């Protein structure tokens, strides 16, 4: 038995900040000190606080070392692991809790305190490449309970009663989706949508990397519920760690007979295959994803028929998102009432959000539905860096919309977000401060959807391109009267007529920024001014007449002759000639010239 465990994150975030080197250094040092029989080194999935990676936790104390480097390992081994003195200097000091003391353990930090981990319960706790550790945390017990103690209909009823809704975006009730697929058919499929594509969202990746068996177990449960014997996980090739761990997990589950023929001796057969996607955003749309698994170009098709009726290879198919599956075993084990006791009236359970943008704690958080946005940003997220002011948060990525500062107390759930013109989406949450221009943000997301549009239907292929043209014009100072109205009309038209979810939601970022920040659009169009100072083309260089001594130096340096005036009187810049090169700014000795 080991007396201490050292957990090191091996998720994508910490791996890219060097956790593998830290792990190697630690193993070497433990060997040198003769501690290998006492101290176990475990690589785990994501802890969530990716901004502070590489993250290392030492149990039993739960000491939380952040931004660990290989150089610090000898000291940590000597002091903490050998002599029992946690190296306080290197332990994460939670600035938000206002404490000057190092956090004693993970759960003392403001980041973790308000979280409720269901889908992420094993992430950062177990070794994802060891099925026994998953089983130790009641893994595969839910599958056993379903196969041996429940009828398929009872399984569906349990999921229905829990109120679980799809975590991939639209929030369709999972139990109802399963129910649709119960009509007798000779062949059915269960598919996992792991084609996470929203810029800024990485919760599915973290679940796959940190707890792959949770997804596998839930897919087998879904297979039993609808009578399917084959499953596919469609995961993007850009997630190499997730792909590798899924492969290991499937192999281990097969070796134990938890996948394959006659599972738990019940005669139920179920097996899973991996399919790697090439990373097209549209393949996250379910019909395009199924088309891609079939070996065709990933393009959507009209619904109905829905996949539950006519899905993969034309057979009834249940397709759910990774995070949705990650909740299923917990619902079976703890009961639907337990799950339904969390969240709001129509949005039960928890939701994982990927915090990004202008926020101190970039990372993954899981919170009960209905948690106010303010708690997420100010408490868990640690607020905005550099004392800047919160301006808005974008939820739902390129399909969603923004929540302005005036609505920061909105409890976050499916219906509230829809009501204020945004959407849950997969849970990306990008925070913006006063330096972000909302027109520029809308343009950024639209650029993404324009380049990811598959081109099959005209509203999306041509319509979003026209919207982007208008936005580009506006940010370049060439906006015209009526542009806003044109954007709204085009946006509504595209939403109503596009073939699939990609096109139907693409105008959302534009429409929602117009709704809450119309004044910024107007400033760009009418005054040729970017209030946030983010749009380069609209930056304006001006001379303060109070400070200008009329020395004429700037006008002699200006390469385009845009500055004129009479000596010893304030000079002026002709904005129509100015190319914003900034030479005058560097020339002025009186600080009279500024750029805004």
């Amino acid at each position, binding site marked *: *038995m080991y*007396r201490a465990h050292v957990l090191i994150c091996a998720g994508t975030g910490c791996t890219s900040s060097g956790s593998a080197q830290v792990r190697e250094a630690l193993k070497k040092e433990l060997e040198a000190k003769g501690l290998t029989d006492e101290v176990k080194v475990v690589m785990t999935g994501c802890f969530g606080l990716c901004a502070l990676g590489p993250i290392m936790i030492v*149990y*039993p104390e739960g000491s939380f070392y952040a931004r660990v480097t290989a150089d610090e390992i000898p000291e940590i081994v000597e002091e903490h692991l050998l002599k*029992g003195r946690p190296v306080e200097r290197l332990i994460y000091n939670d600035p938000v809790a206002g404490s000057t003391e190092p956090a004693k353990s993970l759960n003392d930090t403001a980041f973790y305190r308000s979280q409720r981990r269901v889908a992420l319960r094993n992430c950062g*706790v177990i070794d994802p490449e060891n099925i026994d550790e998953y089983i*130790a945390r009641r893994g595969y017990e839910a599958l056993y309970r379903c196969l041996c103690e429940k009828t398929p209909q009872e399984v569906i009823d349990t999921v229905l009663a829990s109120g679980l809704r799809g975590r991939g975006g639209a929030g369709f009730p999972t139990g109802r989706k399963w129910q649709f697929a119960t009509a007798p058919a000779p062949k059915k499929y269960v598919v996992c949508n792991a084609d996470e594509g929203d810029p800024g969202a990485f919760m599915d990746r973290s679940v796959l990397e940190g707890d792959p068996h949770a997804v596998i177990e839930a897919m087998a449960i879904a297979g039993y519920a609808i009578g399917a014997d084959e499953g596919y996980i469609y995961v993007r090739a850009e997630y190499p760690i997730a792909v590798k761990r899924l492969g290991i997990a499937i192999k281990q589950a097969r*070796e134990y007979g938890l996948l394959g023929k006659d599972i738990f001796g019940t005669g139920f057969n179920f097996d899973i295959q991996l399919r790697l996607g090439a990373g097209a955003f549209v393949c996250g749309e379910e019909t395009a994803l199924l088309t891609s698994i079939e070996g065709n170009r990933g393009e959507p098709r009209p619904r109905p028929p829905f996949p539950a009726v006519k899905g993969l290879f034309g057979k009834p198919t249940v397709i759910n998102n990774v995070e949705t599956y990650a909740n299923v075993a917990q619902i079976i084990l703890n009961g639907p009432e337990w799950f339904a006791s969390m969240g709001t009236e129509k949005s039960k359970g928890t939701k994982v959000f990927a915090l990004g943008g202008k926020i101190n704690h970039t990372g993954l958080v899981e919170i009960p539905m209905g948690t106010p946005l303010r708690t997420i940003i100010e408490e868990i997220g640690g607020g905005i860096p550099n004392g800047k002011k919160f301006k808005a948060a974008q939820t739902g990525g390129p399909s969603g919309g923004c929540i302005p500062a005036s609505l920061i107390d909105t409890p976050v759930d499916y219906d509230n977000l829809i009501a204020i013109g945004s959407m849950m989406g997969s849970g990306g949450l990008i925070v913006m401060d006063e330096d972000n221009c909302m027109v520029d943000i809308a343009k950024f997301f639209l650029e993404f959807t324009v380049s990811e549009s598959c081109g099959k239907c005209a509203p999306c292929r041509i319509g979003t391109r026209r919207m982007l043209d208008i936005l580009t014009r506006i940010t370049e100072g060439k906006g015209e009267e009526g542009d806003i109205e044109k954007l709204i009309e085009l946006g509504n038209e595209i939403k109503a007529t596009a073939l699939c979810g990609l096109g139907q939601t693409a105008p959302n970022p534009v429409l929602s920024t117009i709704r809450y920040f119309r004044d910024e659009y107007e400033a760009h169009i009418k005054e040729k001014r970017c209030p946030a100072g983010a749009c380069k083309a609209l930056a304006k260089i001006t001379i303060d007449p109070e400070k200008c001594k009329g020395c004429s130096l700037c006008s002699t340096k200006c390469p385009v002759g845009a500055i004129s005036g009479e000596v010893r009187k304030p000079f002026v810049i002709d904005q129509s000639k100015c190319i914003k090169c900034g030479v005058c700014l560097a020339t002025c000795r009186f600080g009279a010239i500024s750029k805004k």
Partner: protein
Amino acid sequence: MAVKIKTIEDLESIRASMRDKICLREGFADACVVVGMGTAGIDAGAREVLHALVDAVDKKGLCDRVTVMQSGAVTGEGAPIVEIRKKGADTVVKTNVTPADAEAIVAEAAE
């Protein structure tokens, strides 16, 4: 790993065998046995005591109830020193502990 899992008992036996491997990560047990590991403690044989305590917890299958910890802050006369800290009870201090005392200390902590 070639053994197939067919029954709930198969699952439970894996769970039981893994119990002591992950319970450390699920938070402190109600009782902690803390070994003083200052330089004086290590000199006087605290590491051997620590090992004996861990073995005792393992042997008795008490990892859910007793957490063995080390601390650099437990100092004083009579090293090796072991403290038994229980929720809602006063800390009990044992001095001049030897590996032979380990089983009795763990049993006291688990009471």
